């Protein structure tokens, strides 16, 4: 079993890499997407809204297939890892945009007004007053999403990324000890999400104090 466990754990760096990169893309792209969604220009609002709905209404595995088999097989050659990161990053952006939007709505409107009344430039209001609070409010939802993303990264195994689930499958087929292998990998997923959950709970209580409700 120890042998099997070590083999399975070889997938851990891949799992973490896919998750981390997809999360980064989501955190970064989610912001412009959210701004577009809340913009005053109708066409931009509708376009970004449609993109978000589209991305969230199609299962992640289909997106990965589209990128890897659809686009990747024809014109460009995309590695499974790249396809997984792009696909999951795209999906993360859509979910992050909605999380940001929810956080924005819950920040007291008085904040923007108070800052504007002080004569601050709108962009400065955004950067210095709104965004810091937005991230603090959004943090719990972002943490929950990160944990979900960690589990969704298992989907990358279907297009050949050698992460945890991929390794587990390989071991199961090689040793016929599917029961133990899959129990083990399930436990690994549960264990690695614990630190994120604890961290989020800790940060959440500290951040709460600094946000005006």
């Amino acid at each position: 079993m120890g042998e099997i466990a070590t083999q399975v754990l070889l997938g851990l760096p891949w799992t973490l890499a896919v998750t981390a990169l997809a999360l980064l893309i989501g955190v970064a792209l989610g912001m412009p997407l959210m701004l577009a969604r809340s913009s005053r220009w109708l066409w931009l609002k509708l376009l970004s809204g449609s993109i978000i709905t589209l991305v969230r209404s199609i299962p992640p595995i289909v997106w990965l297939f589209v990128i890897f088999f659809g686009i990747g097989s024809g014109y460009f050659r995309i590695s499974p890892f790249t396809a997984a990161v792009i696909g999951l990053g795209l999906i993360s952006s859509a979910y992050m945009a909605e999380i940001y939007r929810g956080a924005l709505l819950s920040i007291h409107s008085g904040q923007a007004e108070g800052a504007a009344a002080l004569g601050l430039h709108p962009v400065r209001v955004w950067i210095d007053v709104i965004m810091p609070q937005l991230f603090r409010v959004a943090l719990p939802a972002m943490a929950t999403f990160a944990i979900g993303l960690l589990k969704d990264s298992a989907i990358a195994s279907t297009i050949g990324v050698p992460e945890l689930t991929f390794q587990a499958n390989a071991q199961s087929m090689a040793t016929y000890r599917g029961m133990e292998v899959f129990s083990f990998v399930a436990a690994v997923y549960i264990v690695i999400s614990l630190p994120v959950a604890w961290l989020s709970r800790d940060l959440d209580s500290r951040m709460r104090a600094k946000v005006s409700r």
Partner: protein
Amino acid sequence: MSVFFEQAGTWLPQLWGGLMLSLGVTAASLLIGLPLGFFLSLGVMARERVLRYAALAVVEIGRGAPSLVLLQFAYFGLPSTGLVLSSFGASIVALSLSTAAYTSEIIRAGLQSVPAGQREAALATGMTRLDTMRFVIMPQGLRIAIPALLGFAILIFQTTSLCFAIALPELTSRAYEIGTNTFRYLPALTLAGLLYLMVCIPATMLVSWVEARATH
């Protein structure tokens, strides 16, 4: 472009069959998982420590393990204990567990968000804890939980796409199959995507409508 539509025509029956299977698995998992989730939520809120820990364990496993791993466990893992399930059976077992785990948390949140005064008023009249739960807490709590439960149902429908990995001929695997046969992955997957949209978008709009009505 007309070629696409021609091909789409030939593919549609196949994909449609896959869609029906996906919906079937979704319905079965919800039918089994929701009642289970309700009992799990009661278990998590129970006073007896043994019951509470057992329920918590089921919830943490059902939520903590990726759905794909649960599916593979049911299909590839269980046989080594002598229990062999078809891909359909394994899909339902795994997704029911996942449904039960997630919905138990949704239901628990709903029940606990009923104002404490409600419970107190019922108890003050001498009603038993059971009657209080049955007539006062549950009707209100479950009503609160409905939008989130509906949202989750949509998610489970999307999750059936993972049953591809355990050889269930649902929508995604049919699109993939067409792709491997014709090398026209993109059109096939696009069509499958459209079918998913066809279900998910109206469903999401329904959930928003229910949510809006609930907070009148």
